[in-house]
């Protein structure tokens, strides 16, 4: 199950010896150190890492929002230099536009891409339905609960038809109950509408529940510690003995990185 260090050069996403340091005045903070990982098409990869280890930084580099200090990221063999609509992002902080309705938020990407109004409407409707928010099309984010907002964030990312979805701790500040619910939702959405997903979390259970493969990160300066293939059948039962065994085993590895 554990297989570390092997990367496939022909994978869809290739994160090749990526490092990142932030320079503040004459202080340099090394955040990412030689991160190498690969993701296959339609694979659900969970990046599991402790708080403040540079997970958001890594997502931003994958998205093209931030430049790596060393190494490079390629998607389908093409080097990532700028953000692109083909890589959708669900942000850690719910970043809905408060001045737009649910509909307006979800349809924002297609609008920027110049999709004609009729098609845009249909697509928007489809994804609002998919995340279970029908009836809230005209609501403003301020009226929605945290869980609903994240659903809108997911629909917004999906609606632009990206081939890759980057999700940065999307459920980080939801209560446990809502979190379970959202995990089931994400699993369901992904099963219905397959994409390549990179999902970031610091929650082991969430990782085991969702991942085809877990990439375990170390503390800062961050490197890839380990990888775990999760071969459990979906949808998973987080009470099954197999699930609990995996969770415990990965938990031990996480302890070791502390």
């Amino acid at each position, binding site marked *: 199950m554990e297989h570390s260090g092997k990367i496939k050069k022909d994978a869809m996403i290739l994160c090749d010896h990526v490092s990142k340091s932030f320079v503040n005045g004459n202080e340099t903070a090394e955040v990412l150190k030689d991160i190498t990982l690969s993701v296959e098409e339609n694979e659900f990869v969970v990046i599991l890492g402790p708080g403040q280890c540079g997970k958001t930084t890594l997502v*931003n580099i994958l*998205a*093209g*929002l931030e430049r790596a200090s060393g190494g490079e990221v390629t998607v389908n063999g093409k080097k990532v230099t*700028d*953000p*692109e*609509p083909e*890589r*959708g*992002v669900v*942000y850690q*902080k719910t*970043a809905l*536009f*408060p*001045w*737009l*309705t649910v509909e307006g938020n979800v349809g*924002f*990407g297609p609008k*920027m*891409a110049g999709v004609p109004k009729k098609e845009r409407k249909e697509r928007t409707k489809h994804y609002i339905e998919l995340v279970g928010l029908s009836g809230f099309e005209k609501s*403003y*984010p*301020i009226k929605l609960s945290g869980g609903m907002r994240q659903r809108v964030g997911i629909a*917004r990312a999906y609606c*632009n038809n990206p081939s890759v979805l980057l999700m940065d701790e999307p459920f980080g500040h939801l209560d446990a109950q809502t979190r379970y619910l959202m995990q089931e939702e994400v699993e369901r959405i992904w099963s219905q509408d397959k994409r390549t997903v990179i999902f970031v979390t610091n929650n082991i259970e969430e990782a085991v529940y969702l991942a085809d493969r877990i990439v375990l990160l170390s503390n800062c300066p961050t490197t890839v510690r380990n990888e775990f293939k999760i071969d459990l059948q979906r949808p998973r039962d987080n009470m099954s003995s197999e699930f609990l065994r995996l969770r415990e085993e990965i938990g031990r590895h996480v302890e070791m990185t502390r």
Partner: protein
Amino acid sequence: MKEKKLKYTLISVASIAAFLSVWYLVTDVFHIFPSSTFPSPVKVAQAFIRKLTVKTPDGGTLATHLAASLKVALYGYLLGIGIGVPLGILMGWFRKVDLIVKPIFDLVRPIPPVGWIPLMILWLGIGMRAKATVIFVSAVTPSIINAYTGIKQTNSVHIWVARTFGAKSLETLIKVGIPSALPMIFAGLKVSLGASWMALVAAEMLASTEGLGYMIQMNRMVGKADNIMVGMITIGLVGAMLTWILEKLENKLVKGGRTK
């Protein structure tokens, strides 16, 4: 919700009624102050009605003075926000504009708008243009500052969202920067309005032959306190009304609450 609103209205009405009663008591009932310099509310109301038709002693009816004031104020105000808001937005969004404009702006800003009056009289005389320029100066500063700050405070994640969806800088400004700065921009418009209205009265007292400020000034010279109060109350009411209109507009345009 409805009950709360009713309660609020009742309290407002009661407080105004109490104010008028006290005013009435200290003037017409107990004659604490001489009525020539401190007229009662009844006297002021009478003067108000008289001033609707009578032109003496200041050469115009209330309506003509009000129209003159509004005209100057709107010219100066619209010009001020029309230049100030776009300039503030551009300064907030484009670093180059910021670098070029900011030093000049920082130097000019501390001069109180009323301080421009003497120079404006010298340059433009005591007509419409001098007054409108002073009002322009009052309106432009808060518009710039608020639009600038609003744009600067744009949530960086919002900008990322737009960029990942392929928006270019100008598009991002229009679709993300400006909508997210809109509450701040409106706050600036309100501050600008208040400042304009104040500067207007000052300008009219110093450099004018018409308008509400001029009316107050002329009535001071002939010692007619009731007419002065009519002018002051009109200035207050119209100022409040203009703010109210702006707030209605804001409620229409600023959607989804004012949180970032």
